[in-house]
């Protein structure tokens, strides 16, 4: 997109090309008015879905939105902040149990959804103090330990049903059709917010800090980037999003059980969806989530094979196409809908220069010194 993000009109690179001026722009060939229009159209279309789709379809869409929210959050963590968490199910579970606890105290379950998500985010803050002492693989398993700890704790509290879990009260008065609509719109709101928040966060100063850290951590630190603070914000935001996803699970499934909401499979699905679609882009998790549900729907009668295929695909893509399927598409066509990277364009060129705007380096038009946010490779 050709929005000039900074007034970074830099001086000419060499005195001989005095007439050439460079401009840093967002890296996409699509015009910049397309994203809001497509977003509005998509949201509008999805908002009308319950009017003509049967409830079984909208229930499937709720699951799509839940996974997409989680994948977007994991993408923030790993794709931008470089933190591989395998314990996001901790916050999924806490969000789900938040809804149960608020509903048991008499709140409307759907109304308690934001509170449950915020509760998960609040818990993430002290958790970050501990797990941030470890890096890389050790950080990854430490988050998993925290998730298992959360499950063990909930498991031992009989007031919330112990190991067998409990039904969420307060939704049984709704008719099936009204219940389907309520959960659908709640899920749509959550996923729209998750997408908007990711986009906003990454285009903000924080996104720039994260990109700088990823490209050169020592350099970023010495330039004054507050790395820990940036990571902590991302960790808490990811907990907020995963908490909201878990709260949606509790509302849509009408019951919570520790072994289900704290299952590491949530992390597996969000990780695989992100890797396959394309880590370090916002389109990637969307594409990956769609692929996941297409696979799952087609292999619904074949037990765990959908997960085996999805996981194997994720492994192969992580090694041989680390930017995922969207990365392959974007490298060829540069059609990012949510452009977060930058490229350098010539404002005015010497006559000998090629007529089309050229990226500083075509193969890394989303990278380079200006920094496109992406996975630390």
């Amino acid at each position: 997109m050709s929005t000039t993000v900074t007034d970074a009109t830099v001086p000419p690179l060499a005195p001989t090309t005095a007439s050439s001026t460079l401009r840093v722009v967002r890296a996409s060939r699509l015009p910049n008015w397309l994203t809001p229009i497509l977003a509005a159209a998509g949201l509008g279309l999805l908002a009308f879905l319950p009017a003509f789709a049967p409830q079984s379809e909208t229930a499937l869409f709720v699951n799509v939105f839940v996974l997409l929210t989680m994948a977007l959050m994991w993408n923030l963590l790993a794709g931008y902040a470089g933190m591989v968490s395998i314990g996001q199910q901790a916050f999924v579970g806490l969000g789900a149990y938040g809804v149960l606890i608020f509903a048991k105290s008499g709140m409307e379950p759907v109304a308690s959804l934001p509170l449950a998500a915020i509760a998960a985010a609040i818990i993430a803050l002290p958790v970050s103090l501990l797990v941030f002492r470890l890096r890389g693989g050790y950080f990854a398993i430490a988050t998993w330990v925290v998730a298992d700890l959360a499950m063990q704790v909930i498991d031992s509290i009989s007031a919330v049903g112990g190991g067998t879990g409990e039904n969420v009260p307060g939704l049984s008065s709704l008719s099936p059709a009204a219940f389907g609509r309520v959960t659908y719109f709640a899920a749509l709101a959550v996923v729209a917010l998750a997408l908007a928040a990711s986009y906003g966060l990454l285009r903000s100063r924080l996104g720039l800090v994260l990109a700088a850290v990823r490209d050169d951590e020592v350099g970023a630190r010495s330039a004054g980037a507050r790395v820990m603070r940036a990571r902590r914000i991302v960790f808490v935001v990811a907990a907020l999003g995963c908490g909201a996803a878990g709260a949606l699970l509790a509302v849509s499934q009408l019951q919570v059980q520790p072994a289900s909401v704290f299952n590491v499979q949530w992390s597996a699905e969000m990780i695989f969806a992100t890797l396959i679609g394309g880590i370090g882009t916002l389109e990637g998790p969307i594409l990956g989530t769609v692929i996941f549900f297409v696979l799952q729907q087609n292999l619904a009668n074949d037990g765990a094979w959908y997960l085996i295929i999805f996981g194997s695909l994720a492994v192969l893509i992580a090694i041989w196409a680390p930017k995922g399927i969207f990365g392959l598409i974007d490298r060829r066509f540069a059609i990012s809908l949510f452009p977060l990277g930058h490229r350098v364009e010539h404002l005015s060129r010497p006559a000998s220069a090629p007529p089309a705007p050229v990226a500083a380096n075509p193969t890394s038009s989303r990278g380079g010194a200006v920094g496109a946010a992406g996975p630390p490779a």
Partner: protein
Amino acid sequence: MAWVNALLQGILIGGFYALFACGLSLLFGVMGIINLAHGDLAVIAAFIALTIAPATGLPIVWSFVLVVPIFAIGGYLLQRTLLQASLDRSPFTTLLVTFGLSVVIENVVLEVFTSNGQSLNIGSLIANSFNPSTAISISYFSLVVLAIAVVVLACLQLFLSKTMTGRLIRAVADDREAAQLSGANYRHLFAIAAAIAFATVALAGMAYGMYTEFSFSSGSANLLFAFEAVVIGGIGSLWGTLVGGVVLGIAQQVGAQINPAYQILAGHLVFLAVLAIRPRGLFGVRAAT
């Protein structure tokens, strides 16, 4: 007396955890990667032993004679292919690849062996115990596992410090470029380290299967316990791993003594306490970065 027993049982369980953890510790020490499929590899080892013992007529106790070499070869090959390819990309990729493998393995085991719990039946060997008093029972089998763990750790230590290959592995771990300049083939050496790690995890998995019931999903708990043993003991210290395993075992048994539901919880809490108070671990030579 019940508390003394809990303490003793904790020490014995610590042997299991140390046996689980040494492969994890070795791979991290040499390649700087965490193998998230470690626990699931142990589970496959137990299932393979379960399958090949009746097929070959070998008593289950002796099935390690086949399973351990199979795992060593498998570890070498996996390292030369998938793991090395991911390592060439980045440690970040390796982490994700081993996690993917973990999920894939777990679900393949589920599809092939169903979700039923299994155990490796070694008959009366498991039941024999030494009872110095009525409240205390020391299983000979657990003692043997503890002894195996000590022997494996001692062998690893000797291998890494005394043999040419072991020294080359350490050289490559310390400074890959310099070791390469001296003619060390790091891919081969990494694969040898992986072969050793896979062999130890096969031993651990079989010991676990003989000791208790296992199923497709037992792997992640084993991974977490092995990891906790490594961090409590201190990253980079082989003998620390043994102490970490024992500390974790004691924490779990003492927790279970308070309330059976607190067994795993107590272990996790001790792990987090160590992380909060002494992130280097008890014998750590460096911080866990």
